[in-house]
């Protein structure tokens, strides 16, 4: 059994447990985009970073692939971790502004600016679809191809593989294309629908424990703009804007 502390709380886990699992055991949430129970941990999204080590030799590691080791002191919400998460999400929003998952995460961190040109890509290369196809569906019909800036998820030779059973698991597991965020507009890139959404539940309910997850902006009819407070008036429901590119 390995003994370590997470955010000051002691934990005892079996050998081979990842830091992420140890944190989950203690009920400490760590955001992720590429991790899914039942699939091997991948370590690509870098969102699950936590800080380990002692100053001045601290470092950020991906908790999903980092083995818990005896005496480790893990911090899941230190200043460095928060800075990293914010900068990461800024990049994610710029890559895929129409992903609701990503916009929700950005709102939860109170993000107010996105300094990059939006790319409107449809894939963050989290690898979930590839691992799902290989490990859960036992097909292996898709995979990554090329590398670096040209890397992408691909069918072999750009043709549907004979191993593909059309099960749709890849679509199901994708964090980007599952649900489109309706709130992000071309000018602002950031949705922040929930941050500008009024009334905020806390003002109405004393006991609500609001984690801003998920953001309700999209689940309500009508267009939202990030810089405008909108009062909800059912009779003024407008059609949702067309699918972003």
């Amino acid at each position: 059994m390995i003994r370590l502390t997470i955010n000051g709380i002691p934990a005892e886990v079996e050998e081979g447990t990842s830091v992420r699992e140890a944190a989950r055991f203690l009920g400490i949430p760590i955001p992720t985009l590429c991790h899914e129970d039942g699939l091997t941990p991948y370590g690509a999204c870098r969102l699950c970073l936590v800080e380990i080590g002692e100053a001045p030799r601290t470092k950020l590691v991906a908790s999903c692939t980092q083995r818990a080791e005896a005496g480790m002191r893990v911090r899941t919400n230190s200043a460095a971790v928060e800075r990293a998460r914010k900068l990461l999400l800024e990049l994610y929003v710029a890559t895929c502004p129409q992903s609701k998952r990503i916009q929700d995460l950005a709102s939860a961190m109170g993000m107010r600016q996105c300094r990059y040109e939006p790319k409107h890509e449809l894939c963050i290369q989290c690898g979930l679809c590839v691992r799902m196809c290989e490990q859960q569906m036992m097909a292996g019909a898709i995979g990554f191809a090329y590398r670096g800036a040209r890397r992408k998820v691909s069918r072999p030779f750009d043709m549907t593989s004979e191993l593909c059973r059309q099960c749709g698991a890849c679509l199901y597991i994708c964090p980007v294309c599952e649900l489109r965020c309706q709130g992000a507009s071309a000018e602002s890139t950031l949705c922040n629908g929930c941050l500008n959404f009024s009334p905020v539940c806390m003002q109405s309910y004393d006991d609500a424990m609001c984690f801003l997850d998920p953001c309700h902006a999209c689940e309500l009819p009508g267009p939202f703009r990030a810089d405008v407070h909108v009062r909800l008036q059912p009779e003024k429901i407008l059609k949702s804007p067309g699918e972003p590119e």
Partner: protein
Amino acid sequence: MSDPRPLLRNVDDLAAAATRGRKTLYPDHPKILVGMATCGQAAGATEVLDAVREEVERNGLPYLVAETGCIGWCGQEPLVDVWLPGRGRVTYGRMKPGRARQIVRGISEDLKLEWAIGWMPGDENALSGKWTSYLDSHNGQFKGVPAYRDIPMFRRQMRVVLRNSGLITPQNLDEYIARGGYFALHRALTAMQPEEIIDHVTRSGLRGRGGAGFPTGKKWAALRRQRATPKYLICNGDEGDPGAYMDRTELESDPHAVIEGMILGAYATGASEGIIYVREEYPLAVARMLEAIAQTEAAGLLGADIFGSGFAFRLRVVKGAGAFVCGEETALIASVEGRVGEPRPRPPFPVEKGLWGKPTCINNVETWANIPVIVMRGGDWYASIGTATSKGTKTFCLVGQVNNTGLIEVPMGITLREIVEEIGGGVPKGRRVKAVQTGGPSGGCVPAEQFDLPVDYESLTKAGSIMGSGGMIVMDNSTCMVDIAKYFLGFLQDESCGKCFTCREGTQRLREVVTRISEGKGREEDLALLEDLSWLVKNASLCGLGQTAPNSVLSTLRYFREEYLAHIRERKCPAKVCRELITFTIDPVTCNGCGACVQVCSGQAILGEKKKLHVIEQARCTKCGACLETCKFDAVLVH
């Protein structure tokens, strides 16, 4: 080499081989050597060698003709060396077939010393520590030809790794043995315990020469402790840093040094199989290594029961397939396993779980080549060279805007100034030295003001760069630092394996911003953005490639911020490199209308009649610079 090799079973067999080797290494007839490493061949050495052979045969001259590796004087290739018994060895530079023939014909009367650049009166042998003089009693210098020990480029060098490079014929095993080769192995297998060898390596302070600088002794001790078998050793010859070719040279010029080092390492750590991983872009290195392994097997020094000790070790060569990231340990392992070169998170480290999940120790070519010397002279001897934390010597490829380009080996602790000015001979006339770039794409630029820095792992890291594998690129005031950052980011963007988001997306975005700045479209806020993004990529990436990717940006921002600001605020490129910010014109005063520029212009943008002033039509000018290069009258101006 198709003669059946005699087996080398004991020290007497080695001594016999050494005697044979000395007959060709220090013969009593004149001998002509031609440098035939890849850069020699690229400069035309093959034609020179053919001409020499042909001349000797045609005239029935009793001279030996042989190939050799690289002595490090790359800027003077092709090199021809003439050995005159009792008088030493004379080096001729910038040889052409015609001149080489004249030298061969003139060996007894006219040595054509006007083409000679150096004279070797003897050699130092790092394995024995002894100086062998080539001279007999009444012979002194050659008139007007400097001795190597007086030449600034060589005076400060200390050749431990490169002990045989350029001296022996690499394909000749006897010559390697004549210089002390395989005697360290014999001593180790017959008179030393594995722990003793690890102890020497630890005491030597040798640190991984691939760039990371991890203490080699510590790695070996960790491998020895592992229980799982088989244990593997890997030689990392995936020298991907542009501007670095030390490993290529060692593999081509002295492959046996690496082989001997690995056999010693296997004996010390209990490994039974070894792989030498060589880049696919180095076909000659692959060929020479395969040849050397075959020779060593035929001699009984690889395989079972080496020197009758009962110890067995096998080596094979694996070729890379064109991926810089495969220089990273875990990506290299993935490549050998038939997978894409995607690094794995560590722990577990390769020493624990490496190739095929078994304990594996990976060391760089240069690290392995040091081992026989450390075993022979002892770890304490090696530790007497260098600084407190960086022991021994280091090879460097001194290239770029410097007068003496080439491969050098110097003791750690020498300053950058000594390397650039003394050994390198400074920058070309009329230019100012600006910076030295070390560590390849993972490294940074050290500005001229810091040239009194000693070259060691810690100092370079503190200055914002890294030691790296040994590439050292000198830059003068004609180099734009924003362009350099853009160049390295472009390289990393292609070579990143693409798995982790920060590296893949981060290098693209960094490049996007730097490119914007180089095109004159940068904004003041961009510098803060570059710093934030660099921090993220450095701290959040999965492997060393990503973690060091922002170094080019960070170090150029640190020392050359005013250049970035000039691009942003004034839309000017002070070094006149960034294409969108420069204009080419022709000076009406100096242009004589020769028309040479018209022939090479890629945009057909130059107009003018013969003998009359030529003009560049700006709309069609592609800024390729061909006219500037071609004009012999300095009439092309860049603004």
